[in-house]
């Protein structure tokens, strides 16, 4: 059994108890993905599996045979940051930095979900293409806790990147 992590094939672990999170961190040395609670409550372990965000602590590694997994290390490195990572730095979207890779992985997936027209619990008209409001972003990021309380700065970073990159429409008035 194998999974492709950040473009490289790796054999999955023998211990069926090993979570995807612990496999990434302990066996592959990809410690950018963080363990904050191990119970799917904080979002620090968020990674992308076949493009969708999941809590890697809630998923056993052996369930990922054939999957393509992307972690924060694939999004951008310290000397070649992705736009979202640069925006996090510029807006101070973190303090201690521990929840940050999860926030960024989550936000990366959020942007594709919006682009694909996924509705959220606060979407007014679920049949229409979602409009990017502050409330939409807050709702869609709420699985990622930040105890330092950098939430406003994280939303500011997201808004900047969505405005610069996306075909997504930002409702400035609703965001204000």
């Amino acid at each position, binding site marked *: 059994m194998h999974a492709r992590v950040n473009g490289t094939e790796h054999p999955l672990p023998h*211990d069926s*108890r*090993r979570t995807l999170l*612990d496999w990434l*961190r*302990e066996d592959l*040395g*990809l*410690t*950018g*993905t*963080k*363990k*904050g*609670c*191990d*119970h799917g*409550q*904080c979002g620090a372990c968020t990674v992308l599996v076949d493009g969708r965000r999941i809590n890697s602590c809630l998923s056993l590694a052996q369930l990922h045979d054939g999957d393509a997994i992307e*972690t*924060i*290390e694939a*999004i*951008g*490195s*310290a*000397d070649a*940051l992705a736009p979202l*990572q640069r925006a996090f*730095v*510029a807006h*101070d979207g*973190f*303090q*201690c*930095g*521990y929840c*940050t*890779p999860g926030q*960024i992985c989550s936000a990366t997936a959020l942007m594709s979900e919006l682009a694909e027209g996924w509705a959220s619990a606060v979407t007014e008209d679920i049949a229409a293409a979602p409009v990017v409001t*502050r*409330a939409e*972003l*807050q*709702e869609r*990021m*709420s*699985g*990622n*806790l*930040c*105890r*330092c*309380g*950098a*939430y*406003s*700065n994280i*939303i500011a970073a997201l808004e900047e990147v969505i405005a610069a990159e996306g075909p997504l429409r930002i409702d400035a008035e609703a965001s*204000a």
Partner: protein
Amino acid sequence: MRLPFSDMYNRPDERNLLDRTGQGLIGKPLDRPEGPLKVSGAATYSAEWNLPNCAEGVLVLASIPQGTVREIHADPVLAMPGVMAVIADKAMVRRSAQGTAGKAPAQDVTTVEYFGQPVAVVVAETFEQARDAALALRVDYDPAEKPVPLDPESPQAEVETPSDSKPIEGGDLDAAMREAAFAIDVSYDTPGHASAAMEPHVTIAEWQDDRLILRGSYQMLSHNVKEIADCLSIKPDKVRIIAPYVGGGFGSKLGITHEAVAAAVAAREIGRPVRVVMTRQQVFQTVMRRSETRQRVRLAADAGGRIVGLGHEALVSNLPQEDFAEPVTQATEFLYGGDNRLLKVEVARISRLTAGSVRAPGEAVGMQVLEAAMDELAEAIGMDPIELRKRNLPATVPVEGTPYSSRMLVEALEAGAKAFGWDRRQPTPCQTREGDWWIGHGVASAARVNMMVPAEARVTLNPDGSALVETDQTDIGTGSYAILGQIAGEMLGLPIERVKVELGDTRLPAGAGSGGSFGAISTGSAVMRACEAIRETLAKKLGCEAEELQLKDGVASGGGKQQPIAGLVQEKPLAETGSIKPGKTAKDFSQASYGAFFAEVAVHAFTGETRVRRMTGAFGFGRVLNAKTARSQCLGGMVWGIGSALTEELAFDLRDGHLVNHDLAEYHVPVHADVPAIEVILLEERDAAASPLQAKGVGELGICGAAGAIANAIHNACGVRVRSFPLTLDKLIDQLPDPFAPATAKVA
């Protein structure tokens, strides 16, 4: 190099050096230098050091509240795959060390003092093996013969006056209350809180002969070294701690705790490095809690709204013999006037995990209650709550008469009111309705004591014109990497790219550590003084007086001469260690950071659900060292205020003392959806009594009173005054006005 002052900070340094240097780095909203590492997952946190042959330890927690361990059935567990040891060593700790303890907390885990106390550690080859074995381990207990109560309100609970908290008494409060034109006598309670830093507590312990290396998540390394050494009966100089990145602390990592000693003991026993990471549930159950409080506030005011009597009495709790008692009345001592006063904290001895510092111990819960009571007084008088506060700022600290170093409270109230649009607030409740929501506005003062602690830092100016700042100061998200670099760059006239900052290693000079909002001003002052010593040398080499020396963009000038700084250093680096200790200024002046909070809330007319719609905070904390990281500190504090006001509460089961909500699903910290856009205003201030930087602490200020503003906004919205935090909907719903009676409500 002899500097024109001693280590002790005895006189305010009025030179305001940082206003005369020319590099332009101080105060600038520079990005955190470690930011790229953090956003790319490349910063190494304590669990992430890859040590060869490292074994895994998992703690086992007591399933009774009090008693003794009769037997640990280790054999069946030792037969499980990969399990190497089951350890319940006498050195292991029952409690966590308090901040700055510098010595071992209560040891010996054969005695159980509270439900969830660690009693053993299981060590195995892999985490999964150790976790399963820890779950399988059977422990037999003998229950305590004379248990202490589980409930601070129990009549059986022994209540003491804490050793370091003398009541403050002046005049005759009872008489003042009787004779006052307006009197408020109210009782509030606040629940226990958890720090809940995102990174769980972790230690990797490695012995190299008789030397111990710990890679761990701690806030105050120079103290932590002494604590762990005392636990293990070894010399502090045999211990090295490495902690360059700490995933949040908020008080919970001030002192060493269970996992550190367990890892060190286990590593010694099996002769291999051992990593012990606490589970999230273990962090909640065993590390540290903020005590719940019951607070009585009495306010007596004359007809003009001047406070003539002030009482603030609090009951908090802790384990027996524990010194720490939540200093609830700490800011009440100096904030408002009223010569007839009684301030008092008492501590009930109970069986719950150690109570200690959680972000802004004292003010976090004391200020939110005082400020809610002030709102009640303003309502009783019929006075604008801002005016009431402005009218009651004493000229010197009541009773003791100490002068204030600097106090920007009026400025904060005014700047915040303007930005927030306070003039549009309806003075009476239940005036604004938007659909199903009542809208209201509230204000509260912010105050947090300012503290300096001893700190050292080394600054090296290299022949290539770069500088290195070194100290064991931690950066727990506070911005130490950023501001220490900015101070050095400013003092040495170097662009920020030329300054490197190394932190979090006890081989470096002992910084203040992160806690009590004192890291920046203490360690920052040490950096400044090291740079001053270097400046003296540079002036001499250039041939001018130190006062004439100008350093900018790598060039030194003065006395009509000019030369590149690198040229002055020549082949040997200039290294100086700066040092500062609190001195007379700490006693001669009342030092505190101040501010004001403004909140707009919506309260659902049918359910009582409260949403914070916007918040403004204005703060004066001396010189701003980095406007970006300082703003983030204030922002984060206000987010804690939202949690404290609306959701956060440790719930203990009074039958067996177990913590019911011991994880992040049940202990509700604010999430993205709970936090609106928050406006932060940083006021321009200099406070020479606080530090040579003219800066004061900011790390905790943003929480100190914030929840009070939200409580006051809720009252303004729907007319309900709840005196029990958090203000959840169940406490509001039966007191809400008739939602179908729109006659009193304007629909916006």
